């Protein structure tokens, strides 16, 4: 077990090195002078030259990469030429907002996906099953920014049920930062009203992200339930007179746990990349909007950092999913222990 996880860890580290090399080399190959970008247009030629030496731009490529990796290992991702602050400071400021959004979206998709899957599976071939199939078809074909715009248009602009911009109204005092999660921080500071307002702000962007995953997770749960519904052990429990609710939650849902967790791991990557679009629509001050802004301004240090951070997160999530599944699935657990 430990050996397997160790192997996976080594593999991901190799992949991350490859990824950093790939993105770093593209950033160095493209036209444009990073030193000039860092200093702005007013800097003199001498200053730029000095900066080039400071940033090791005068050295050959492998040496540049070596210095860059060394700095990354020391927690230094360079300076953003757009915000003119260290990239790590920017990331620390913006990542919690995105994390809050993604975790909330995951929660929504899990809860609604399970409900939808159970209903569609138990009442298979009913109108609800048909509807859920239609939604999942549409969900795959609809870009998340289209969903975001449609939801914003309908629920914020036509029906005025929820706000569409940012995390809190400008007039409202944000709570002191502890976790960086607005809802949690407000509750920690005892400001229930702020927490509710923040939650309300969270609603539409999180739903925009979650819609696709509700549909997909629903389909997985459905197929698992349909597959098991006619099995002997279920019939036996029925004959023994076990209540339907208990039958569903205790016996029917269990086989779908592993595929659901696997898909949630994959979904996390999708949520993170779709957040790039949804945060733009809702002006959510998070990591993804920061990433897009730095991209539009050709801020190379920040862009490289963004890609590497995404790679690290993705690798960690995949690893976590592997570990969780190997604990949940007895066949894998025993196999690994034996082998």
């Amino acid at each position: 077990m430990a050996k397997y996880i160790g192997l996976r860890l080594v593999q991901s580290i190799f992949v991350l090195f490859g990824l950093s090399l790939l993105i770093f080399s593209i950033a160095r190959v493209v036209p444009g002078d990073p030193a000039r970008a860092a200093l702005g247009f007013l800097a003199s030629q001498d200053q730029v030259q000095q900066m080039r030496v400071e940033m090791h731009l005068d050295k050959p490529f492998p040496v540049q990469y070596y210095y860059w990796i060394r700095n990354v290992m020391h927690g230094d991702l360079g300076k953003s030429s757009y915000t003119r602050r260290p990239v790590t400071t920017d990331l620390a400021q913006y990542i919690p907002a995105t994390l809050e959004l993604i975790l909330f979206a995951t929660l929504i998709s899990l809860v609604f996906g399970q409900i939808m899957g159970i209903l569609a599976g138990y009442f298979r071939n009913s109108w609800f099953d048909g509807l859920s199939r239609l939604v999942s078809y549409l969900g795959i074909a609809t870009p998340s920014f289209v969903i975001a715009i449609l939801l914003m248009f309908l629920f914020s602009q036509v029906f005025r049920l929820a706000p569409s911009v940012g995390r809190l109204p400008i007039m409202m005092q944000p709570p002191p930062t502890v976790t960086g999660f607005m809802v949690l921080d407000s509750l920690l500071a005892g400001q229930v009203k702020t927490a509710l307002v923040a939650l309300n702000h969270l609603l539409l962007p999180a739903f925009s992200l979650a819609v696709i995953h509700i549909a997909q997770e629903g389909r997985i749960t459905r197929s698992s339930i349909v597959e098991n519904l006619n099995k002997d052990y279920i019939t036996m429990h029925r004959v023994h007179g076990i209540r339907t609710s208990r039958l569903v939650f205790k016996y029917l849902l269990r086989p779908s746990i592993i595929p659901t967790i696997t898909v949630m791991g994959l979904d996390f990557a999708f949520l993170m990349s779709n957040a790039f679009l949804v945060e733009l629509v809702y002006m959510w001050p998070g990591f993804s909007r920061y990433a897009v802004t730095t991209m539009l301004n050709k801020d190379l240090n920040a862009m490289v950092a963004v890609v590497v951070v995404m790679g690290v997160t993705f690798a960690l999530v995949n690893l976590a999913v592997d570990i969780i599944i190997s604990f949940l699935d007895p066949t894998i657990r025993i196999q690994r222990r034996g082998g």
Partner: protein
Amino acid sequence: MWQEKRADLAASFALRRRGLAKGWYKFSRNPLSVVGLVVLVVIVLATGLASYITPYPAHAGPYTNFKAAGQPPSWEHLFGTDRIGRDVFTRVIFGYRFSLLLGIVVLGLGVAPGVILGLIAGYHRGTWVETTIMRVTDVFLAVPPLVLALAITAMLTPSLLNEMFAIALLWWPWYCRLVFAVSSSMRNQFFIREAEFSGASEAHILFREMLPNCLAPILTKMTLDMGIVILLGASLSFVGLGAQPPTPCLGTMVADGAKRLPGEWWSTIFPALAIVLVILAFNLVGDGLRDVFAVEEV
């Protein structure tokens, strides 16, 4: 001799026709796939004849008419007009042109290298060749394609050409992985072994023996991928990193119109629905092909 050959040829044609008929039967068993196919054909025809069938072909380019700006849908302007007075319907049809072009170019550039590398990795299963190829593939799959595509296009300065290039650069690993899975599983089958023993060259084994057996999943995946690539391209241009104005790009149109919600809803909702329609059509056709080829998972 000659007559024999002719009979053979006729027989093989009959066989092929029967195969096609059978394929069509399987495809058309799902009415949704047929609907998808019809929608696709209509879209392809419309984009091909865009200059003739759209009411205002000039509006696809740099055209302004502020007098007609922001008009709601009417018989004159089916989808209304945008903020500088261009007909949204015309621009949606021309926008499809760029979406389809993007999909075709990306898959045209991306599939071949992926397939070739996948075949090589599958043939050399268990050697350093496979390890090298598949680990490099992992690197490209380590980050969601949208993020990498955004970063690469941004670094190369945003344009339609760079957008195509960036997405194509990200697309080969998926085919490499798919073809590797199929080809490595047939590596030790008799027909491959036999070809080896009879002294066939590696190129012959890769392209004449292995490749034909990989075609069904490749074709199915390409159809499904057209939808995904178009979605990705729309996302890139929505962010502002795709084709630059005045190119009529569906993603850009949605982004432009979104600034004028909820008042002029037509200039964003119609292009948005247009994107969904084309992606949905490709997905439905792809699902139909999956039924025809009995491909399980792509």
